[in-house]
């Protein structure tokens, strides 16, 4: 597989086990993965490496995933970044709806299977 054609996904999650899990899942399916453990680091990666898609948790120490999305949306050159919110937080649903719905998918960690996420990622990488 040519590396330059390989798509890149950024995973933002403060839980190392979940970052590893997603890294495994995407690497096996030939998707390049970068991971960040907090919003600040994620924002730097998005500006410098411009990943094709970002999967982010919401509740993290420091800035939340929603803060990250808002910050990215406010920065013109990366404003169109596609986000998948993958979280266990029920209450954040409303907040996500308040953001740009067109480019944000909201998924509950406990409700879906890895294949479903993979499918959503593949659909939006095209």
């Amino acid at each position, binding site marked *: 597989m040519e590396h330059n054609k390989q798509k890149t996904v950024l995973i933002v999650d403060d839980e190392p086990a*979940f970052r590893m*899990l997603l890294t495994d*899942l995407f690497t096996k399916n030939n998707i390049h993965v970068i991971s960040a453990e907090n919003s600040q680091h994620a924002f730097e990666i998005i500006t410098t490496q411009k990943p094709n898609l970002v999967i982010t948790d919401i509740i993290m120490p420091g800035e939340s995933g929603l803060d990250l999305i808002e910050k990215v949306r406010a920065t013109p050159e990366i404003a169109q970044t596609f986000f998948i919110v993958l979280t*266990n937080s029920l209450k954040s649903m409303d907040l996500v709806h308040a953001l740009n719905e067109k480019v944000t998918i909201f998924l509950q*960690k*406990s*409700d879906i299977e890895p*294949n479903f996420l993979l499918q959503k990622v593949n659909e939006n990488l095209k």
Partner: protein
Amino acid sequence: MKKDLFYFSTIFCFILAIGIGTGFFLYNYFHKDELNSLISRANIISSLIDLDQLSTLSITTPDVSNQNYLNLKNSLIKISSYNSDTRFTYVMVQKEKKIYFIADSEPASSPDSSPLGQQYTEAPTGLYDTFNKGEAHTLGPYTDRWGSWISAFVPVFDSSGNVIYAVGIDIDSAAHYRILYSVILLTSIVTIFFLIIIIATYRLRKKEKKIIQIKSDFITLAAHELRSPLSLMRWRLSMLVENSEINENVKKEIEEIKISTLRLITMTNSVLVTTATEHNIIDHQKFQLVDVSISIVKAIEALKDMQKQKNISINLSEYLKKPCLVLGEIEKLELVFINLLSNSIKYSPQGSTVFVTLSSEGLKKVIVIEDQGIGISKKEIKNIFDGFFRAENAKRSGVRGSGFGLYMTKKIIEFFGGVIECSSEINKGTTFKVTLNTK
């Protein structure tokens, strides 16, 4: 909380208004009552006056030794002594627009006594009306050289109806107002007592709500904390099941662990949904029309193993095989039917049938789940939707249960504006009727 504040403020204002109203009413009532009684007493005194005897007096100093004058004076002293609250009773005459005392109830030796023929210079205007218009009057409180008084004046008529004398009666205004203020004080104490009760109840309720909030926050937090590791387990197990390097036998075992994990996830989700519905965290406006048939079919699918184990057949009405839209959320409705159907299966004898029917009742959809199980006694049926309640026969049956399921079920259904009812007969079976809205 705001609703509570409104409710309690309304009651507070209402009690306050009633208190003030009662105070005013009682004040006026006792005040008028006292004035009326003063007039009656003055009238009684006036009726006792012997006009013939009085007409012999010239109202000048020599009359002091006149027997008729002494008779009048003595009767006034006597009457006054019987009415302990009256300070003065007196008879007056008007001559050339001036008012003069004839006799009063004070013994002649008293310094407060008004001697015969003394002019009543500070006579209140009401007294002139009594003479000129023949009206009975009450006055006061007013202050003159003897003190502060409440008075009543009544006219005394001659045989042709002209006012010739007037009878006055005074009571100490301080004594009168002491009674009135006591009434006000008493009313205020009762009102304040009720207001304090209201405030105390409100504060207690606020505290109670706070405790409930803390409890549900704790449950929510705990459930959230559980969801993270459970999700991780679910995902890892799913990935293992699909891993081609793992042999089929191991995969079966992993599959079983995954089912248990899913059950744990469902349970924590139920707890979260219940606490969320209890506190209306979820926005009611977001309800959509969803196909309730799908959630029933999904629920039956989820309970397949349990159903097989007890060899229970589930009889679905034809109607259920078509879409049927109701207001709600698929996942939560699925939880409802998993709860109801798993109860039916758990408490039914081996090989029996559970009937599930769906019908329309006006704009509502009615789902009925009927089993041939152990039933619930009449005494206990009203408690089955209470959290953590389990019927005696359910406990004896050896079937595992927390008593949380029906509580949650009811919360979810009511959250969607629906109704759940239960009827049952011991050893015959139980029927749950769920009514859901379509609009």
